[in-house]
């Protein structure tokens, strides 16, 4: 966790957030300052510590392979910003990477 400059534009791109130039500067500063604060974790001896993804001891929570009713299509399409016929419509997708 060396001190680093966050490439805020790249992160915003990963998160699909268009930032204004002002936001880019402001968020960059604020995130930099937050990262300073979280740097305290560096002082903890964590090498042999297991990671906790969940606090509950549960295992093997599964459902049986039973079919349950789906939503009515009218409800689904009515909730969509734009629909066309029986589909939800979106603007064109340029290439592999949307």
């Amino acid at each position, binding site marked *: 966790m060396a001190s680093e400059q966050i490439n805020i534009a790249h992160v915003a791109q990963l998160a*699909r957030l268009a930032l204004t130039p002002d936001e880019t500067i402001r968020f960059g500063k604020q995130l930099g300052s937050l990262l300073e604060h*979280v*740097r305290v*974790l560096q002082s903890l001896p964590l090498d042999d*510590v297991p990671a906790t*993804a969940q606090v509950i001891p549960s295992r093997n929570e599964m459902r049986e392979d039973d079919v349950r009713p789906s939503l009515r299509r009218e*409800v689904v399409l009515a909730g969509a*910003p734009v629909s066309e016929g029986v589909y939800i419509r979106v603007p064109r997708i*340029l290439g592999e*990477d949307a």
Partner: protein
Amino acid sequence: MSLPTTARAIADAVCRREHSAVAFAEAALDALQRTEPKIGAFLTPLPDLARAAAVHVDRAIAQGRHLPLAGVPIALKDNLCVEGTRTTCGSRILENWVAPYTATAVERLLAAGAVPIGKTNLDEFAMGSSCENSALGVTCNPWDAGRVPGGSSGGSAAAVAAGVAPLSLGSDTGGSIREPAAFCGIVGFKPSYGRISRYGLIAFASSLDQIGPFARNVEDAALAYDIMAGKDPHDATTVDQSAEATAAALPEDLRGVRVGIAREFDLKELDSNVRAVYEQAYRDLERLGAELVEVKLPSAEYGLATYYLIAPAEASSNLARFDGVRYGLRVEGRDMRETYDRTRAAGFGAEVKRRILIGTYALSSGYYDAYYVRAQKARTLISADFARAFERCDVLACPAASSPAFAFKAKADPYSMYLMDYYTIPMSLAGLPSLSVPCGYVSTEGGKPLPLGLELTGSLFAERKLLAAAHAYERGTRHIERHRPEVFA
């Protein structure tokens, strides 16, 4: 004839047919009408739904059914889905979204006879500690309209504090029930992670989020908890062990209870008048029969850093679905990529964007091990600290917040706002049941009383012990009866 005001008394009265559920619904809707202009707790009042539900309850009671929450008006934080109602999360991106299904916790309360009167304001996507991050409304603290109600479940806390409803639901990820409960002078209870189904709770940080009740006393909170808790086939993280009933036979004193006071949460940093209240609270615990023991939580100070990596990381992924494709706001661009960028830029507020960015960063290639994995490991240490502490005590006591409710715009710097959760975050990271119960007041310069909350925490799944201790403390101190908020129905 005046109507009873606690959930238990209301349900009893309706079940005995002394009053109708419709009467309570009308009273609550009337109280909502009267208080809303001053506190703005609700984003969407639900008068039609409330009346229909009340009629339904009265009919069930007339048919001889017993419903443990018969006719009890409840307010619901607006990140809980209720079929057919607008569910916004306090965000522009969901401003007009109508949920097509109902959250399990809500469904269980409704099945028990509760009557939903409205959806309450919150920090956008439950990210905040003041309710100021809502994009859709301002909620004021009923004790002082110039102050925040706390957050993120500020609307639900304010609605109960102002006497609009005896019960409400909030959600707590790092303190979002306990802090507003403290600021509003009521009981706010976050159960153990896994106790109450999250199905239908719009996720902020999935490994931390937990639904819980606000009430004007511990018994009502326990009553609501008993109904909501338990395994849900729709939520793989709910635990198997059936929740033991907590609301029945709550004790009146603390004899035999060991209350842990953590060295790391000492009161020295607090303002002297605030400190005096907590010192008195600890003495009250002893007076009521508790044995105070000092415990150590050496990793707790890393809670904030740990939380502000894990919660945003999960949030960055959870909030990716708000993309303008299937529901919610869409700001159409020339292509899909531009549509994503514009929709999310217009739909999310600054705090949500900040957390999405930090979370995306913490998970991104090259930083994952340094940030996210380290935080997960620190989480292990924090949980282990609590486990050790609970070998020596039954419940832990500490302040729920370092100050009473603060004025609007007092915490303009994001990090100073994050510090508000200092006392609540470690418990969330460990998944522990934790609550805030009123423990006294300080006065504003203008002489208004402002409530403070004592945070009590139990070990994982030890809700019964925790609620028992909180009830005994409440009965032995009766702080809530000493003052009434400025705005009260």
